C-alpha cells in the first residue's frame, strides 16, 4: 500500500504542476496581484515621504500581500477539482484520503513559494534601494518564507476544500482563513522584521519568532491533516 500511496502522491502533484504550467492560472493571478499590491503600497506610503524608514513597515506590507495572494491560489487549486466532478473520481479511487491532503498541500506550498521568491526581489528593488537594505543575512528571510508558507498552505488546503463547497467561495475562504492565521502572521512579521533589521538582538528575536512559526506549523498542520479525511468526504 505504501508504494501505491507514493505513486498516487506523485501523480496528483505532477498533474497539478502540468496543469499549472499549461494554464498558468495560479501563477499569473498571484504574481499580478502581488505587483498590483506594490503599486497600492507606493500610493499608501507616498505622503510619508523620505523620512519614513521603510524597513519598519516592510515586513508587515510583505505579509499583507502574501496572505491575500495565497488565498487566490488556494481557491484556484480546488476549483478545477470541482469543475467536472474530478474530486468524486479521486475519492472513488482506492486512495488514502491523507494522500490527497499531502499532495494538494505540497502543490500549494510549491506554487506559493515560487511566487514569493519571484515577487520578494521586486519588492526589495522597488522599496529598499538606496536605503539600508537588509540588515540580516538573506537566508533568514528565506527561512521565514518557508516556515510561514507551510502553515499558510497546510491550513489553506483544508479551508479551501471547505470553501469550494460553499456559496461565495472567495469571501468564505477569507473569513475562515485570516483569523485562523493571526498567530502565524504575527510571528512571520516579527521574524521578517528581525531579519530585515539585523544585529545580535534581532537574531535572538528572530529565533524566538521562528520557534512560534514552527510550533504553529506543527500543531495546526497536524490538526488540518487529521481533519482532512472528514472534510473531503463530506
Amino acid at each position, binding site marked *: 500500500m505504501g508504494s501505491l500511496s507514493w505513486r498516487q502522491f506523485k501523480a496528483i502533484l505532477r498533474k497539478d504542476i502540468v496543469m499549472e504550467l499549461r494554464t498558468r492560472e495560479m501563477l499569473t493571478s498571484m504574481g499580478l496581484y502581488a505587483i498590483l499590491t506594490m503599486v497600492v503600497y507606493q500610493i499608501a506610503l507616498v505622503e510619508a515621504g523620505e523620512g519614513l524608514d521603510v524597513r519598519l513597515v516592510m515586513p508587515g506590507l510583505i505579509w499583507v500581500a502574501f496572505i491575500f495572494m495565497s488565498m487566490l491560489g488556494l481557491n484556484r487549486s480546488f476549483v478545477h477539482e470541482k469543475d467536472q466532478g474530478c474530486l468524486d473520481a479521486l475519492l472513488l479511487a482506492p486512495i488514502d484520503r491523507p494522500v490527497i491532503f499531502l499532495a494538494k498541500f505540497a502543490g500549494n506550498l510549491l506554487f506559493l513559494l515560487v511566487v514569493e521568491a519571484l515577487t520578494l526581489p521586486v519588492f526589495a528593488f522597488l522599496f529598499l534601494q538606496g536605503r539600508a537594505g537588509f540588515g540580516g543575512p538573506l537566508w533568514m528571510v528565506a527561512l521565514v518564507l518557508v516556515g510561514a508558507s507551510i502553515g499558510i498552505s497546510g*491550513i489553506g488546503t*483544508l*479551508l479551501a476544500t*471547505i470553501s469550494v*463547497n*460553499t*456559496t*461565495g467561495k472567495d469571501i*468564505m475562504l477569507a*473569513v*475562515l482563513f*485570516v*483569523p*485562523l492565521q*493571526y*498567530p502565524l502572521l*504575527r*510571528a512571520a512579521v516579527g521574524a521578517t522584521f528581525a531579519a530585515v533589521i539585523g544585529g545580535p538582538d534581532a537574531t535572538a528575536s528572530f529565533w*524566538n519568532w521562528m520557534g*512560534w512559526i514552527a*510550533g*504553529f506549523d506543527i*500543531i*495546526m498542520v497536524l*490538526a*488540518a491533516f487529521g*481533519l482532512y479525511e*472528514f*472534510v473531503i468526504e*463530506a
Partner: protein
Amino acid sequence: MKRGYLAEVMLVLGAVLTTAAFLMTFFWAPPSVYPDGRVDFAQKIFYFHVPVAEASFLVFFFTAFYGVRFLMTKRKEFDVKARIATEVTLFFVLLTMATGILWTRVEWNVWWQWEPRLTTYFIMTLLVIGYFVLRNSVEDEERRATYAAAFGILAFIDAPISFFITRVVQSTHPVVFKSGGLEPPMLVTFIVGQIGMLMLGYAFYQLRLKEEELKERLEALKIGLGG
C-alpha cells in the same frame, strides 16, 4: 424532562448569584487603590468582565468537544450541541469585548487598544462569527455539520495560540487579581460572580438545546404525517 427542570433552576440560581456578585462588588468588596492612594473605581468592572471571559472560553471548549463527537459518530444531536455551545460562546465573547472596551475607555482614555487580551478576543469574535457564516453558506445539512465541526476544532486550537503570542509583546493588560494579594471579600465576590456566570451559561445552553429538540420532534412528526 428532568434535565429541563435543572436548566431552569440553574437559570434562577445563576441570576441570583450574578446579581449578588453585582451588589457585593459595590457594597462589600473594598475598592482597589492606585499606588498613589486614589480609588480605582473602574476596576469594579472586572468582577463582571473576568467571569464572562472565562465562561466564554469554557463554553467554546464544548464547540470543539461536540465537534469531535460529531465527527466520530456523525450523529446530528452532537452538531446541534456544538452549534448551541458556539451561540452561547458568541454571547459571552461579545459581552467580554463590550466590558473590555468600556474599561479601556475609562482607564486609558481610548475606546480601543490593540492590547493582547482584547486582540485575542477580537480574533475569537471573528472566529465565532466565521463559524456561523460558514454554517449559513453550506446547503447540505450533513456537510454543513462536518465543516462546522472541523472549523470549530481548528478555531478552538487556534484561540489559545493567539492569546499566548500576543502576550509575547509586552502586555499592558492589567493584572487585576494578583495571586495572593487578593483580599477575601474581593475573592469571594469574584468567585460568586464566576459561579453565577457559569450557571447562566449552562442554563442558556440547556434551554436552547431543549428548544432545538422540540423543533426536531416537530420535524419528525411532520415527516411522519407526510409519509
